[in-house]
């Protein structure tokens, strides 16, 4: 029996195990939406902006490990998801985006709502394809899911012209894909693995440096095993958080620009670096010429392009991190089976790290006048009993969350790392909540980021998705303001947000609960009440606009040269009140003096 392209689309998605699609309709995808609404097995989450759909699908994918699915129309529908695609591309998120296209006979005619979807998305997808013939549709969808989820995951775009969704053909879903140019390498070279194990056994000051690859590579258990049998401390990138329990005695938390003093010092003095699914991003390395000057480097990654891209690797191992670490752990166990001896040997190094930790721990001073953002994050961490899925936006609040939320499990930390997309957090939290309706999902955001995708509040309300939005409202683009204070003589160009909307009224307008904490003394109650509430909640918590995030490696600075507190000149200028004046009363933004 012949069926339409639209039916093939739905049937193929079902075969791929898709339950939820995030999207928004339009002219050229009407046929697909028409078939979709007649099916019970595919749920459509109708977003209010296509960008929201893309980030929801990312949140869904990051929380579940499965591909997130987006369905949007041609032209503006497609261009609106570009940020989401670019974000997913940077953070290796498996995403399959279906975009409508004008009929094949109109392509290239500058038709209504036409855009060169494959051309626009080429540099920000892992792969993309324009399906010109309905007979190729099922194969294209099969391949899209395979490419998105295998190897180093990433976004794949499938462009479906209107006439292809209407045309009919026999449906036969392919059992397997055979892409002669795409065979992800997974094994890991045995002799390299042995060499790595030998290097690990002889190292005196080793560090395991874990990135997002370990999350999508599902290598959490293997990382833990490696750390425990070798007693090597673990530090994680922003994307790698959760892979290794933040509360574990061998955890050093995050490294890099706003990482802990101790983890950056450990990296700087390490004699061996075991990089697992990490890509030596500039936010991690700082000045490359002074990064880990004494370390030999073992670099395990499924993507060969990540190896030696920015930093040298003495022992490169191309392969799936899970499988490579498994093999490596077997070799390591065969080399030394005595945990006590290992502990003793590692003790001076771990003691040194502990000393650094005591020397410069994370600090903030909470008084009774104004709420510090760190205080809110730390409280939230306690109140969620360390079990919540946390989505963040981008900026200071993201760094505070990364510092204070010691995640226990992978896939509970959803953040935009590579692209640094403000507006990511809230839709990502919705995506995760759709995937796990019964788990607690918290979105830590700020008013700057939140206002970039707040239209999706209605989605939370409509589906009663109990996302808890903790909005750190400080009236400024905090990270921009921090850089201006540190590097631009406190000239606040475009970083003060001035007039603030009333977020509690906004929540009310969208039919969800709104709460506000103006003073530190109100924070606990607001958080408790918000977390207790059954439905979605927007908690508007007013925080200190001038709190800075430390430690900080200034951009391009060396990793061991961290700023640990406000520089003296800045403190002085604040005391004199010459540079600025605070106005953080309710309803008023921060105004330049």
């Amino acid at each position, binding site marked *: 029996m012949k069926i339409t392209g639209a039916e093939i689309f739905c049937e193929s998605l079902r075969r791929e195990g898709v339950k939820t699609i995030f999207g928004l309709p339009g002219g050229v995808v009407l046929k697909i939406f028409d078939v979709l609404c007649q099916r019970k097995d595919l749920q459509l989450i109708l977003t209010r902006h296509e960008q929201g759909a893309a980030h929801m699908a990312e949140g869904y994918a990051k929380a579940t490990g499965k591909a997130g699915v987006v369905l949007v129309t041609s032209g503006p529908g497609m261009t609106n998801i570009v940020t989401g695609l670019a974000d997913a591309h940077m953070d290796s998120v498996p995403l399959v985006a279906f975009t409508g296209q004008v009929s094949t006979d109109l392509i290239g005619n500058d038709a209504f709502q036409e855009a060169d979807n494959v051309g626009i998305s*080429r*540099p920000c997808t892992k792969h993309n394809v324009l399906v010109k013939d309905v007979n190729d549709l099922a194969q294209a969808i099969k391949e899209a899911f395979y490419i998105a989820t295998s190897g180093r995951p990433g976004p794949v775009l499938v462009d479906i012209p209107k006439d292809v969704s209407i045309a009919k053909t026999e449906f036969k879903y392919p059992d397997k894909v055979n892409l002669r*140019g795409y065979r992800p*390498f997974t094994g890991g*070279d045995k002799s390299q693995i042995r060499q790595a194990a030998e290097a690990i056994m002889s190292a005196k000051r080793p560090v395991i440096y874990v990135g997002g690859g370990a999350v999508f590579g599902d290598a959490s258990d293997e990382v833990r095993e490696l750390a425990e049998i070798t007693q090597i401390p673990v530090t994680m990138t922003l994307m790698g958080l959760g892979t290794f329990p933040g509360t574990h005695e061998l955890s050093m938390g995050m490294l890099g620009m706003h990482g802990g003093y101790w983890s950056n010092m450990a990296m700087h003095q390490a004699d061996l670096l075991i990089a697992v699914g990490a890509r030596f991003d500039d936010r991690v390395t700082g000045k490359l010429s002074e990064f880990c000057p004494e370390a030999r480097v073992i670099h395990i990654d499924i993507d*060969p392009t990540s*190896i030696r891209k920015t930093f040298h690797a003495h022992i490169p191992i191309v392969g799936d991190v899970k499988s490579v670490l498994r093999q490596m752990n077997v070799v390591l166990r065969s080399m030394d089976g005595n945990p006590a001896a290992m502990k003793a040997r590692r003790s001076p190094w771990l003691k040194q790290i502990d000393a650094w930790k005591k020397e410069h721990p994370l600090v903030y001073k909470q008084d009774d006048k104004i709420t510090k953002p760190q205080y809110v994050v730390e409280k939230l961490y306690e109140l969620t009993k360390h079990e919540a899925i946390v989505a963040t936006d981008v900026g200071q609040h993201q760094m505070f969350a990364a510092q204070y939320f010691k995640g226990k499990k992978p896939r509970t930390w959803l953040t935009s790392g590579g692209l640094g997309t403000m507006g990511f957090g809230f839709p990502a939290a919705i995506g995760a909540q759709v995937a796990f309706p019964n788990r607690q999902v918290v979105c830590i955001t700020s008013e700057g980021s939140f206002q970039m995708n707040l239209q999706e509040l209605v989605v939370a309300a409509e589906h009663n998705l109990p996302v808890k939005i903790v909005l750190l409202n400080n009236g400024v683009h905090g990270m921009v303001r921090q850089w201006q204070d540190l590097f631009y003589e406190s000239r606040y160009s475009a970083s003060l947000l001035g007039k603030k909307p009333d977020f509690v009224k906004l929540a009310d307008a969208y039919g969800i609960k709104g709460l506000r904490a103006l003073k530190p003394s109100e924070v606990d109650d607001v958080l408790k009440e918000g977390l207790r509430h059954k439905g979605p909640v927007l908690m508007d918590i007013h925080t200190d606009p001038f709190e800075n995030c430390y430690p900080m490696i200034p951009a391009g600075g060396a990793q061991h040269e961290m700023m640990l507190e406000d520089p003296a000149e800045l403190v002085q200028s604040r005391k004199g009140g010459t540079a600025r004046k605070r106005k953080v009363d309710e309803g008023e933004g921060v105004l330049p003096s």
Partner: protein
Amino acid sequence: MEHIISVLVENKFGVLARVAGLFSARGYNIESLSVAPTLDPTTSMITIVTIGDDRIIEQIMKQLNKVVEVLSVVDHTETDFLDRETVLIKVNTKPEHRDEAIRIAEIFRAKIVDSSPTTYTIEITGDVDKVEAMISMLKPLGIKDLIRTGRIAIARETTRTASPRREPALLKP
């Protein structure tokens, strides 16, 4: 250093854009580019001449390998290879220069493929040294126009078994 890289790809639309985009997105320059189907009509060979240090070339090779439609990538510079380029050169030929133009063409075993009262068009095929040498010989006569195909390359059969310099994991299985 200059490298000649042969990229075997699926003969599909958009593949060239993907390969070229990979260079432009990273700020790498393409010195010359040639594309044509191979013996197997489902594949095309893209020959790229590019310049870069070892680190850049390693990235280029890896990035090319990562493209789904790329079937294989060979950097000829690592082995013994033959390369050729065809150039059509239109030289001004005042009456007193005609003999000289013919002589130069003969020396380089080039052909005069077109003539007009004021120009000869000379076709030359050869490796880069030969082509450049002939161009420099013709320059004094006055080159009116010049067009090059871009270089193509093929490995010499005797060196086919030479082991690749980079780790095997970087090559597609």
